[in-house]
C-alpha cells in the first residue's frame, strides 16, 4: 500500500495510529463519557461529524493563509474556526434534527475543547494532505475515536458488576484498562510504519 493512498491514510488514522490509544488525543472525553455504550456511540458520531467539518474548513483556511503568507496566524484561526464550526453544527442540527440534537446534549459544545479535533487539523497541515486525503484522514480518525470509545464503554459496563479493591475504583482502573487496550492496538503497528 502506498503511504499516500486513501485506504492507507484511513486505516492509519483508524487503527495503526489510533488517535486515542496511540497518539493520546481526546483523552478527556475518552475517560469522561465512556461509562455507557449509548452515550459513547453518540459522542463518537458527533465527534466524527465535527472532525469532517473542521477538517474541510482547516483545509480551506490553510490554503488562504498560505496564499496570504501569514501562516503564524494558523493556530488562532484553526481554533476560532473549530469553535464556530461546532456552534454552526449545533444550530443546524437543532433546526433540522431536534431528536439527534437532544440525544447529543452537552457533548456537542464540549467537542470544541477536544484536542483530537485541533490535532487532526494540525496533522493534516504538517503532512500536506490534499483535499481527498484530508477527508479520508478525518473519517479514519473519527472511526478510530468511536471504536476506542465503544471498546472502553463495553469494558467499563462489564466492570461495574465486578468486585475491585476500593483503592482502584474510578480513574486508576480506567487508565489501566486504557493501557491494556493500547497494548492490544500496538499489534496493528505491523500493518504499516509506526510513523505518527
Amino acid at each position, binding site marked *: 500500500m502506498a503511504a499516500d493512498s486513501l485506504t492507507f491514510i484511513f486505516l492509519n488514522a483508524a487503527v495503526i495510529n489510533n488517535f486515542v*490509544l*496511540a*497518539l*493520546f*488525543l*481526546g*483523552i*478527556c472525553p475518552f*475517560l469522561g463519557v465512556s461509562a455507557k455504550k449509548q452515550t459513547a456511540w453518540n459522542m463518537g458520531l458527533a465527534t466524527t461529524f465535527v472532525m469532517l467539518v473542521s477538517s474541510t474548513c482547516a483545509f480551506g483556511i490553510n490554503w488562504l493563509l498560505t496564499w496570504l503568507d501569514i501562516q*503564524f496566524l494558523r*493556530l*488562532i484561526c484553526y*481554533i*476560532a474556526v473549530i*469553535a464556530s464550526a461546532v456552534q454552526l453544527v449545533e444550530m443546524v442540527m437543532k433546526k433540522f434534527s431536534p431528536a439527534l440534537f437532544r440525544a447529543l446534549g452537552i457533548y456537542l459544545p464540549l467537542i470544541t*475543547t*477536544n*484536542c483530537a479535533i*485541533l*490535532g487532526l487539523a*494540525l*496533522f493534516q497541515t*504538517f503532512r500536506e494532505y490534499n483535499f481527498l486525503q484530508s477527508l479520508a484522514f478525518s473519517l479514519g480518525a473519527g472511526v478510530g475515536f468511536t471504536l476506542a470509545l465503544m471498546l472502553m464503554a463495553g469494558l467499563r459496563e462489564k466492570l461495574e458488576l465486578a468486585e475491585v479493591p*476500593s*483503592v*482502584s*475504583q*474510578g*480513574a*486508576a*482502573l*480506567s*487508565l*489501566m484498562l*486504557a*493501557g*491494556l487496550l*493500547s*497494548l492490544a492496538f*500496538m499489534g496493528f503497528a505491523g500493518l504499516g510504519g509506526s510513523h*505518527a
Partner: protein
Amino acid sequence: MPTLPNQEEKVTLDTFLRGLWEENPVFVMLLGMCPVLAVTNSVRNALAMGLATTFVLLASGTLVSLLRKLIPKQVRIAAYIVIIATFVTIVDYTIQAISLDLYNALGAFIQLIVVNCIILGRAEAYASKQRLGATLVNGLGMGIGFTFALLCLGAVRELLGNGTLLGLQVFSDQFQPWVVMILPPGGFFVLGAWLLLFAWLRQRRERRLLEQQGASVHGR
C-alpha cells in the same frame, strides 16, 4: 472551587500550595491528560512541556485578569481562547528557535496547549474573577503542580523504559529496558499506578483519622 463567584481572594500561602497538592491539576482534578500521557516518555520532554504550559498559564492569566472588567460575558470563552492561542503561538516559535530537537520531540503537542483544559479552566474559574496578584500566585502553583506531575511520570517512564534519567545512564548494561514503558501503553499504566498510590495514601490517612476518633472501621 472553594471561592465564591465575584469574591476576591486574599493572597495566602494556600493560594500557591493548592495547585501543588490539594488541587493538583493532574493527580486530583484529572485535567489536561493528553499532554501528560503523550510527552512524558523522557524527563527532558516532560520538563519542557511543564515549563511551556506554566508560561502560557501565567501569561494568559495576567491578560485575562487585567481585562476581566472589559471582556463582555457573552463572548468571554472566545476571547480567552484567542488570548491563549496567541501565547501558545509565541511559545511554539520560541521552542522552535531554541531547540529544533525538542520541537520535533514534542510535535503537535506544543500547539495543542491551546486546548489544555487546565489553562481555560483557570481563566474561567479564577483569573476572570481575581486580582492580578492572586492570579499569578495561583497560576504559578498550578503550573508547578502540573510540571511536578509530568516529572513524576517522565522519571518513571524514562528510568524503566530506557534505563536513563535526563539522558544519564542509571542502571548497568545488564539492565534490560522495559520498552513498553516509553510506548503509549506505558503512559496509561504509569499514570494509573500513580493514581493508585495516591488513592491508597488518601485512604490510609482517612482510616488513621477515623481510628484516632475512636470510630469503628467497617468495610474499608
